[in-house]
């Protein structure tokens, strides 16, 4: 009884998980510019840290009461059947996301204090420090709304909120980049690609309301689970539109194109938003809607295929990239493909498991990449002369950083091995669980994912050898040095998580599966598949060996071509040019769309509406009408009536005043005559 009461108190704290980041944001907006970087960083980080504490309390409470709770915060929309309220939903699935997001966010916030301190100086605009943390806190708040939502509409608010923050932070250096506009264009691209997905989400909500009459999760799922065969088409449509939403937010085929460009944002943004948290929102949403997708088998298969295809496709592109962050961006797309495939074959636990471990090691990799970039930029500013045209992200300009940045190298290696799936690091367990499930449930997906896993190990090996081994290929890399502890400490923390994260759901223990079972219902538990694990580990080791052969044994020389180009020939230029997908979209969608909008603007809007309809028809017609009304109707008719009444009254009163003579006797006579007439009327008539 006592424990139960306490559990309820803990659940009541849940809304604070949204409130703390918002409070931090408001404090920074109001006082940030005056009180300096130290204060801003401390407020932002502790706001997210407090949210993390709340998340831990929810975890504790869920241990006691695994059913979770719904904490109503406020009424929102109640129109007819539609009843969407602000309700925080605590269950094992949302608590998993809360823990992961706030935990990783806290580390990245701390890292960002150090990183942005350097970044705003290297870019020459220290005033932007506060703005960065305001956006960052807003992002965490929006993400918390997304994961704690109890209905699709509230989830959509968070969904849009994180999209907005993503846009704001990709364009954080909006006046930089190619032509002084490339970063802003990247932000816009992300926003528009996401809008396409959001459109899918919206349509899915409309359809769901038509079918289920509610957007609340439980009610919608009850409807989907109990719907008859005549509703199957509607459910499939809902699932497909939700999938469109997920492909936008989680950067899957066909909408993945925005994520590589999103690397224009500062590196903590890439780590937090575009690797660990926001891009996993689509996976979370599909895992949350497991019942809906379970009722639409065809849509689920499409989800799995899209995920597997994206995983392989993005992995091939990652092989040919030279920008250290672009490699990681394509890797993220590929890994999100793994997760999507997992939730598509209804292995939600494996998907969520990979989501969490991926958040650890991909955030780690991005932050380490940021550390590498900062180190190289320091090296760049160390020397004199013109640095224009030097790209500190370019792996061809790096090399030999192993000795100069020891901590960064160690954590980067940890992250890379975890991503490549080398046991016993986190990535091995989570990726292997997806592969094992796929081999069991959907062999085609299994083959695609295994190939993607092979390429993953290869491009990570290539990156490690290019960046950290061999000799420095530029003087900037030669003078690079390690970053201060404020930057390296969070890296070590994440490295530990990336190393031991597999412990969340060890084969045989299945603690995460048991934990998520409370929310997802029965989850089938697959025994550890030694064959699958053996094959994937062997392939990963083989790929790393291959990478060593190409990049490690004989390190790349300065200005040399990629050795892979000799082997693959024209295929490599396809890879390096990202299979010309951006160009293809340009021809297919962007150019026709621009042409259409130009035509609409110039011909339809300007020539037709403005010149003809407005100027000729409406304006001229109106002028003619008003002229007729004023000259003919008003002057000749209305004024004449008014003047006539006045003249008539004047004439009449002139005549009437003659009656008033002023002679008393004439009045008396009139009275007398009147009286006589009156009396004669009474008497004789």
């Amino acid at each position, binding site marked *: 009884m006592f424990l139960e009461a306490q559990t309820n108190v803990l659940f009541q704290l849940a809304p604070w998980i949204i409130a703390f980041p918002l409070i931090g944001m408001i404090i920074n907006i109001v006082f940030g510019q005056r009180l300096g970087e130290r204060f801003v960083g401390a407020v932002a980080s502790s706001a997210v840290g407090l949210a993390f504490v709340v998340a831990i309390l929810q975890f504790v409470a869920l241990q006691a009461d695994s059913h979770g709770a719904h904490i109503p915060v406020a009424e929102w929309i109640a129109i007819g059947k539609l009843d969407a309220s602000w309700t925080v939903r605590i269950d094992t699935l949302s608590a998993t996301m809360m823990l992961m997001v706030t935990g990783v966010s806290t580390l990245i916030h701390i890292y960002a204090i150090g990183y942005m301190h350097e970044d705003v100086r290297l870019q020459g605009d220290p005033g932007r420090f506060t703005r960065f943390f305001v956006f960052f806190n807003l992002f965490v708040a929006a993400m918390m709304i997304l994961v704690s939502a109890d209905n699709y509409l509230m989830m959509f608010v968070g969904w849009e909120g994180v999209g907005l923050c993503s846009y704001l932070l990709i364009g954080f250096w909006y006046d930089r980049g190619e032509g002084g506009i490339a970063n802003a264009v990247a932000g816009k691209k992300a926003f528009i690609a996401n809008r396409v997905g959001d459109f899918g989400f919206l349509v899915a909500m409309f359809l769901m309301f038509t079918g289920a009459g509610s957007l609340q999760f439980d009610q919608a799922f009850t409807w989907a689970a109990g719907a008859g065969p005549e509703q199957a088409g509607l459910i499939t449509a809902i699932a497909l539109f939700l999938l469109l939403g997920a492909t936008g937010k989680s950067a899957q085929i066909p909408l993945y194109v925005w994520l590589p460009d999103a690397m224009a944002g500062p590196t903590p943004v890439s780590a937090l938003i575009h690797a660990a948290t926001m891009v996993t929102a689509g996976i979370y949403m599909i895992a949350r809607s497991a019942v809906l997708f379970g009722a639409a088998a065809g849509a689920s298969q499409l989800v799995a295929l899209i995920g597997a295809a994206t995983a392989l496709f993005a992995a091939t592109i990652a092989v040919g990239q030279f920008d250290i962050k672009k490699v990681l961006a394509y890797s993220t797309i590929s890994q999100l493909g793994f997760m999507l495939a997992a939730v598509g074959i209804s292995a939600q636990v494996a998907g969520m498991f990979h989501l969490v471990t991926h958040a650890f090691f991909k955030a780690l990799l991005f932050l380490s990449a940021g550390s590498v970039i900062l180190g190289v930029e320091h090296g760049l500013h160390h020397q004199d002369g013109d640095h224009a045209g030097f790209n500190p992200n370019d792996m061809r300009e790096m090399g030999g950083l192993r000795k100069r940045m020891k901590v960064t190298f160690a954590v980067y290696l940890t992250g890379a091995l975890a991503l490549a799936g080398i046991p016993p690091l986190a990535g091995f367990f989570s990726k292997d669980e997806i592969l094992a499930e796929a081999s069991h449930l959907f062999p085609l997906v299994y083959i695609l994912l295994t190939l993607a896993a092979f390429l993953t190990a290869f491009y990570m090996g290539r990156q490690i050898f290019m960046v950290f081994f061999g000799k420095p290929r530029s003087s900037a890399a030669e003078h690079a040095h390690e970053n201060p502890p404020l930057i390296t400490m969070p890296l070590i923390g994440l490295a530990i998580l990336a190393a031991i994260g597999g412990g969340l759901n060890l084969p045989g223990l299945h603690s995460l599966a048991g934990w998520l079972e409370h929310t997802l219902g029965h989850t089938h538990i697959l025994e550890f598949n030694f064959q699958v694990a053996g094959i994937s580990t062997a392939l990963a080791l083989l790929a790393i060996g291959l990478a060593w052969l190409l990049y490690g044994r004989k390190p790349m020389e300065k200005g040399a071509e990629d050795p892979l180009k000799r082997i693959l020939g024209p295929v490599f230029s396809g890879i390096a040019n990202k299979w010309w997908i951006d160009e293809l979209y340009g021809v297919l969608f962007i150019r026709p769309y621009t042409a259409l909008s130009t035509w609409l603007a110039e011909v339809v809007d300007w020539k037709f509406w403005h010149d003809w309809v407005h100027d000729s028809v409406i304006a001229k017609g109106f002028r003619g009408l008003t002229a007729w009304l004023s000259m003919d109707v008003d002057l000749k008719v209305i004024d004449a009536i008014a003047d006539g009444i006045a003249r008539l009254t004047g004439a009449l009163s002139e005549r*009437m005043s003659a009656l008033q003579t*002023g*002679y*008393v*006797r004439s009045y*008396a006579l009139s009275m*007398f005559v009147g009286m006589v007439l009156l009396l004669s009327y009474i008497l004789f008539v």
Partner: protein
Amino acid sequence: MNIPMEAVLALSGVLFVLGVLGVLIRRNAIVVFMSIELMLNAANLVFISFARTITPAEIGLSGQVMVFFIIAVAAAEVAVGLALIVTIFKAKKSIDVDQIHSLHG
């Protein structure tokens, strides 16, 4: 002494007509006033004569009350009227009603 009703009514009619003629014909304001008094008293005479003959006598009483009322009103009217005439005389040095016509239209 019993005077017949017709005689009283005839006298009253004669007095009333004299009053009307006086108002219409005479130009002296005081005489006009006196003529008005003549008409009022003609009416009083009719009231009195009817009050005397009507039965029951209680209803006739109201005719006599009316006469007193008219005498009182006539006295008040004369007081106001004479005051007006005095004022007019002060301003115009005349009480000829034909010369007082500044309110004409």
